[in-house]
């Protein structure tokens, strides 16, 4: 009996060990692939930050280097001039030399390191013949150099001529604020437009969603079907007539042109209606018995219970409006009213080959959103799942 029990236990142990081993290998493989994928995601961003700190000479260097470096230089005490430094092989040792002048295919250099040879002046041919062909004898000596000034220069690059937020409504005239730096105005414009659109969408969509979910009126279902049908219509279809309408109303190149068309969304109504339908009817009936009208039920019962759905929709609308590019491109002309995305595009148009500035501006544009995401990512992912499952 003992031996039989031992045999069965041994077999159980073997199976458990076998399962664990394949799981371990699977996990190792998963780690490898995930690390590779993660590197693919992060390496371009790391290069973006690194390029944003590079000196202009290093930003377009060929072959490209990751670290921001510039060539070292040395001030000649005799003449007071600065000379570039190079690495060179002298008598078999690696020496750091300053190139003083060039004479007929050779360079007159002054050795700075190693200290035993320091102070000597030599003539070194510029090119050496080796088995691999012609090789340059002088290699630039570089040191790490983070050019933080790229950021401030990019920030000040676009200067506004007209005051920000100057407008006239009838007799009331607001002279606006003199903002010099374009990027500050771009940030403020984006904030204003995005916050207004988000609040507006949340308000109008939740009101309409409550009407579709809980109130009864003739034509309710047909109207909602109409809402649903327009969700599938591509945005381009409505963009052209809306542009013509805004031009007729003389609202082109105003903040309203960016805010109004985005403030009313059938998708938000659809999403919130789905959510409101899942609120139990008992709560609403209890509120009604307490004497609440439709508005009371909406405010006291539905809204507090819908915080996750409202937060999810708000996050989506905020991100979507913040990243809007095509519509502001169509309707906005004035630089001082441009949102951030359009501002970055116009910056790119002006400084199209100066990659250090472009990368610095991109980091300034991307940075806040990525930071906010990293801080609040749990809620963000929850919102995606919520809208995906309900939608």
């Amino acid at each position, binding site marked *: 009996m003992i031996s039989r029990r031992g045999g069965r236990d041994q077999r159980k142990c073997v199976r458990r060990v076998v399962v664990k081993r394949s799981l371990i290998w699977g996990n190792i493989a998963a*780690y490898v692939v*995930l690390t590779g*994928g*993660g590197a693919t*995601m*992060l390496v371009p*961003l790391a*290069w*973006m930050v690194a390029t944003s700190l590079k000196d202009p000479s290093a930003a377009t260097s*060929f*072959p*490209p280097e990751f670290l921001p470096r510039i060539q070292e230089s040395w001030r000649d005490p005799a003449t007071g001039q600065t000379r570039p430094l190079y690495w060179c092989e002298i008598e078999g040792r690696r020496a750091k030399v300053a190139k003083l002048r060039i004479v007929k295919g050779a360079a007159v250099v002054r050795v700075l390191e190693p200290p035993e040879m320091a102070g000597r002046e030599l003539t070194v041919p510029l090119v050496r013949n080796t088995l691999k062909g012609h090789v340059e004898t002088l290699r630039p000596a570089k040191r790490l150099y983070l050019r933080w000034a790229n950021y401030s220069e990019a920030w000040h690059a676009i200067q506004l001529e007209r005051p920000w937020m100057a407008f006239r409504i009838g007799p009331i005239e607001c002279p606006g604020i003199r903002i010099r730096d374009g990027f500050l105005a771009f940030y403020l414009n984006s904030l204003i437009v995005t916050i207004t659109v988000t609040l507006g969408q949340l308000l109008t969509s939740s009101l309409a969603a409550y009407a*579709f979910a809980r109130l*009864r*009126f*003739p034509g309710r279902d047909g*109207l909602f079907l109409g809402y649903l049908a*327009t969700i*599938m*219509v*591509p945005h*381009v*279809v*409505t*963009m*052209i*007539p*809306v*542009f*013509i*309408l805004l031009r007729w109303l003389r609202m082109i190149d105003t903040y309203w042109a960016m805010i109004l*068309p985005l403030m*009313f969304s059938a998708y938000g*109504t659809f999403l919130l209606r789905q959510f409101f339908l899942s609120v139990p009817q008992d709560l609403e*009936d209890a509120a*009604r*018995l307490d*004497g609440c*009208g*439709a508005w009371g039920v909406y405010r006291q019962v539905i809204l507090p219970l819908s915080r996750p759905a409202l937060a999810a929709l708000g996050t989506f609308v905020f*991100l979507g409006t913040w990243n809007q*590019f*095509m519509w502001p491109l169509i309707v906005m002309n004035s630089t001082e009213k441009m949102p951030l995305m359009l501002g970055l595009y116009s910056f*790119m148009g002006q400084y199209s080959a100066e*990659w250090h500035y472009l*990368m610095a*501006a*991109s*980091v300034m*544009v*991307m940075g806040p*959103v990525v930071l906010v*995401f*990293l801080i609040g990512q749990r809620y963000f*992912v929850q919102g*995606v*799942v919520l809208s*995906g*499952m309900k*939608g």
Partner: protein
Amino acid sequence: MATKHRNPSQEQRQAAVSECRSRCAGRGSTFVRQFLGACGFLLPNLLGFLVFTLVPVVAAMLLSFVRWDAISPWQEARWVGIHNYVDILGFHRDPATGALTPNDDRFWYYLYNTVFLMLGVPVGMALSLVTALLLNRPLRGVVIFRTIFFIPTVCSAVAVAVLWRWIYQPDYGLLNELLRLAGIENPPNWLGDPAWAKPALILMGLWVGVGGYNCVLYLAGLQNIPEELYEAARLDGASWWARLTRITWPLLAPTTFFILITSIISGFQGFFVGVHIMTAGGPAGSTTTLLYHIYQTAFVYHEMGRASALAMILFAIVLVLTLINWRYGREAAQIIY
């Protein structure tokens, strides 16, 4: 009252509610009050919906039958009937060779560009699924990986386009440097070569989208699959491939169906930022999608009628694709259950 409160039935509840309503109603019928209440709730959204969505859709349909540049007064708009559509979609006989030639061969080329760029959709979905499967394992630090994979989606599309414009730089960009390190002598001039511009855009789209929304939705779908199914399959001796194809894939069918629909719809209407910033329509129009063509026709060349007709054609394509997907995808998703 001494009556015991039991859970009231539906009819009792409704009777109580309507009795309360009529007590509070006062003058005027409840129907009118309800109607006015509903109006108050609905009006802001309905007004915006009418002005900015419904009427423009109808207006776009009308505009597609007109030739107008929206700069001259509207009285100068010319009604041309379906001539715009014929111009875009039609064919005619070439008088010289007698062969059937399209009226607007650029349109068919741009349509080809759009469909080509959509090739990234199934690839992206497969990669998202693989990523979700890997992230679903009980590994230490999985949350860090999930965050890292999601970061490109959060980055603003304009900044991403500027970044990738630098990456694709033929002389000192990152990608060609990596290719040269790997031994490839003459890496292509990505954004300047008509043959490589579209794959370049697809690659950028994959970088942004793989760990993004699709991956999160797949993760949520995977976590809804009960663990017992996998255990039972393992006990029956099923390999990982069998588990993947027999359990995971069928149970993910609703998620796949949803992701496919949204990816197709957004794929046909997307890529504007990438195209406009990186190639502005591409070398020799090789990255001009239908959407970008509509933008150029309307807002650069000011041909509103023709642009509206193109937009209607795009709408029709998206509609047909969605209906096909709806009909067959729904069936596939429901058969599993």
